[in-house]
């Protein structure tokens, strides 16, 4: 009943889903190397014109520097907050645990445009808006739940007796944390760092509202898209894509390398 026909159909179906997901990314790459201002099929000539344009654009360079600072700071902050909360949830039962968890899990349920408005109003009220770190503050709130979720999922796979065993063998709580919990969570921590950095790197609504004159890459893209059909967007997008993919693959390779070492 569940034979080859079904397998072939499912294979094609998964392929179709991936085609849908990757079509905009691949076409963006193709358009960035295409001479037409409004790309269609048949394609125009091969050109690097759009890359040359952004390479010579000081605004783009400044935006890249800002984005790197914002997303890396956000990742560290959010992963730390997420880890603390995930561990508290895993280890302890306490009063008001519901509200406690709600406090970290609610931000993603609030649309970015609302958070943008609220953050802008509040940060200007307490005199913290219009700075690069205004974005970092806002992004840490938005991304911490994702870090928490990943690390909590990992902790869920851990046998709770493992930590108790460490205590019974004479380790303090801090030692058990350092030698049992953190190593066990390491893959989740690395993924959390990557995921939070990526979300922050791509976030434009809140950044756009609270950053004042400090532009990050998505804000530059938003400004170009609002103007007109401009293929430099594809060039920036491709550049950003390649940069972040390099980082992700690097993180992956370092991580796997370390795992192999620790096993041998």
């Amino acid at each position, binding site marked *: 009943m569940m034979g080859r026909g079904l397998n072939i159909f499912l294979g094609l179906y998964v392929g179709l889903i991936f085609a849908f997901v990757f079509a905009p990314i691949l076409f963006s790459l193709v358009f960035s190397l295409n001479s037409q201002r409004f790309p269609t099929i048949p394609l125009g000539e091969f050109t690097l014109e759009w890359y040359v344009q952004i390479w010579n654009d000081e605004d783009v360079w400044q935006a890249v520097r800002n984005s790197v600072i914002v997303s890396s700071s956000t990742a560290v902050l959010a992963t730390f907050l997420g880890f603390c909360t995930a561990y508290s949830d895993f280890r302890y039962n306490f009063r008001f645990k519901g509200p406690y968890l709600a406090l970290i899990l609610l931000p993603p349920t609030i649309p970015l445009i609302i958070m943008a408005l609220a953050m802008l109003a*509040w940060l200007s009220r307490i005199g913290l808006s219009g700075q690069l770190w205004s974005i970092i503050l806002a992004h840490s709130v938005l991304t911490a739940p994702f870090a928490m979720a990943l690390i909590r999922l990992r902790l869920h796979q851990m046998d709770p007796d493992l930590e108790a065993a460490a205590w019974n063998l004479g380790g303090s709580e801090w030692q058990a944390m350092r030698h049992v919990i953190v190593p066990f969570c390491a893959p989740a921590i690395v993924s959390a760092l990557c995921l939070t950095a990526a979300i922050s790197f791509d976030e434009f609504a809140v950044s756009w509202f609270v950053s004042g004159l400090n532009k990050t890459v998505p804000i530059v893209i938003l400004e170009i898209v609002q103007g007109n059909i401009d293929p430099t967007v594809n060039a920036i997008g491709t550049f950003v894509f390649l940069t972040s993919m390099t980082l992700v693959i690097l993180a992956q390779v370092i991580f796997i390398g370390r795992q192999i070492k620790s096993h041998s």
Partner: protein
Amino acid sequence: MNIVNRRLDLYALTWRLPIILWQLVFFVGPVVFMVAMSFFVVRNYRMMEAFEFANWERMLTRGFFWDSYWYTLFVASLSATIAMCVAFPAAWALAFRASESVRRWAIFLLVIPFFTSYLVRTFSWYVILAESGVLNAMLGYIGLGPFRMLNTHFGTIVGYLTLTLPLVVILQTVSMANIDKTLVEAARNLGCKPLATIWRVVLPLSKTGFIVAALFCFILAFGDFVAPFYLGGSQEPTLPILILDTTKSGQQWPRAAVVAIMMMLTLFTIAFTAIALAYRKPKGARA
């Protein structure tokens, strides 16, 4: 787990306190202030602290607000439903038919879109779906079209799916892959038909992940202004577009706050219901 520890020590506080302090200042603060702001007044393009209901009255008695409200609710629900249905066969295949390494690769690939700009992908769809764009040119070769795809509901939904589909496939796949396979085999061995197995064994066991996926999908679509604006043509403005417009025209932050609060109340109602459903343990199931 479930170690009841009533003694509060330094160790426990180290892990529990950071998030409380941080979220109070940078999450509760902004939200509470926004609620207060909805009662402020704007005079001569300057916002003044006050306690008046003028903004609420002005927004909630207008037809355009409610048109926008119901339309946003409708498209967000529609896109969540479509995303869940479209993702399911792929997630099922990845969870039950694919090998461990294929599944890892598929999830890795599906994470990639998170590392690309949503704006750039939207812009790319804009060019692909245009009247003289790539898709219509391709359809033209086989004698179809051209179809009008931009500035339609179709365009809006394509935009929403671009945002949500990878996430939904990942969440569905992971929650189904974590199911104890022996339970599924047991159901099959006991004579349960494939579709019934999905309905009575697989779905109940992966309920939490599925509800979370649908919820995320709904929330993302409900709050997104890019897809309805660039691909849907914003002829029927969604609530996020209303907030943008209201904020920009004459610095009407308090009125935008009213729209924002209405959106939040709606989302909280839906989210709390969904989470209550997600974590309600089915009778007789293992925790």
